[in-house]
């Protein structure tokens, strides 16, 4: 089981968290204006790297806030945060 670093509660067991997948996936500002390809990309296509991944977690059994973590998907090691990025509660 991984220890996930909640920026507000500190490192807690993975079982307290909900996984949110890739971070910084933006909804097109005007969905009517984008092509089918771009809409499909937004809906269904996510990065799937073997290595460093910037991803969202929600501390559902704790403070219930969302935050961003960088993790190596090969080793599952959580990487040091990049300054203010980690505590971001909304996708920018």
């Amino acid at each position: 089981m991984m220890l996930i670093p909640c920026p507000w509660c500190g490192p807690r067991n993975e079982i307290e968290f909900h996984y949110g997948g890739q971070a910084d996936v933006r909804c097109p500002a005007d969905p009517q204006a984008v092509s089918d390809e771009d809409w499909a990309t937004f809906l269904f296509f996510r990065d799937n790297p073997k290595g460093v991944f910037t991803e969202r977690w929600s501390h559902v059994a704790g403070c219930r806030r969302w935050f961003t973590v960088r993790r190596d998907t090969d080793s599952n090691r959580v990487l040091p945060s990049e300054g203010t990025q980690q505590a971001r509660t909304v996708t920018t």
Partner: protein
Amino acid sequence: MAPRTPGADLPEHPTWLWHSPDPKSSYDVVIVGGGGHGLATAYYLAVNHGITNMAVLEKGWLAGGNMARNTAIIRSNYLWDESAGLYEHALKLWEGLEEELDYPLLFSQRGVLNLAHSLQEKRDSVRRVEANRLNGVDAEWLDPQQVAEICPILNTSEDLRYPVLGATWQPRAGIAKHDHVAWGFARALDRMGVDLVQGCEVTGFERVGDRVVGVETTRGPIRAGKVAMAAAGRTSVLTDTLGLRLPIQSHPLQALVSELLEPVHPTVVMSNSVHVYVSQAHKGELVLGAGIDSYNSYSQRGAFHTIEREMAAAVELFPMFARAHVLRTWGGVVDVTPDASAIMGMTPFENLYVNCGWGTGGFKATPGVGWCFAHTVAHDEPHPLNAPFSLERFTTGALVDEHGAAGVAH
């Protein structure tokens, strides 16, 4: 009935069923991934399409990835026409595969019960039974009493937290010995002169413009007329080198076995709601699986709380399992799609074909995948059965949503 010796049904361990040649510099077809899907594809390319100047490249040892790690369940009771077509074709091939390969696969059609624990699940299950019948897939809806008759060790009492309200029943479903399936295909391929190259990891592609002309490997470049990918959870790592993005996410999927027990479990039981599926292997282990770990990972291991939950579910449904011991747990890497259906077909690159996204349920489809993917590669167009599983469906919106029939219990 006199107790059978555990393992009495098993054939002798094989000696050498295939060679492990060094790769040649060039082939008509190169298959990336020596698991069940890769081997089956090579087999039908050779048998149905006469292609034998071919190599199957495997980064580790033959069938040592998800083919060695799955729970060996075979069934075809999926909801939609597209899925029923593909999985039922696979099941029909399974029914003749031991004879076809002349090799014991321990294919056992002991049936599968998919339990329903809520009114909604009951309605969905009855709908799926009707859909299955319309597609020529054997299916029945059973009430709790009938379920108990088929599987007496299952707790069908009303005092469960999630009581069994009934189940779908597919009598032709069952299990096979997964390793033997790989060995059977491998032996046949070796005899037809196909190179099964182990310890040869594909790291990228050689291309001329949008045409793939070969692969780069840890044992040097290999030229290929056509390249067919059957790399499961590692697919993205390879397609990323082409800038080809696929709608798949790689997750850990765990399974476990108990120690060897006398035969107690006559069928296969799956429950989406309480999250477990259980069968008993020929040798006697209870084989348990459940859902994926939630996060993306290539680590081939998952967290204990996932299997703890799955064991809790198993003990709730089968109280006698509380006395069993876990012998071994393990994990694999599975590639999951947004609609819980696979991707099989063409790519934007000429001479490159992809079969991936089987998530937690690829084993049952093995011969069907081989048949259809071989057709796709040989004819440079999809077989009618895999045409709906194209990459384009994510853009056109023609998804094949099998979350209900696949879900946890793929």
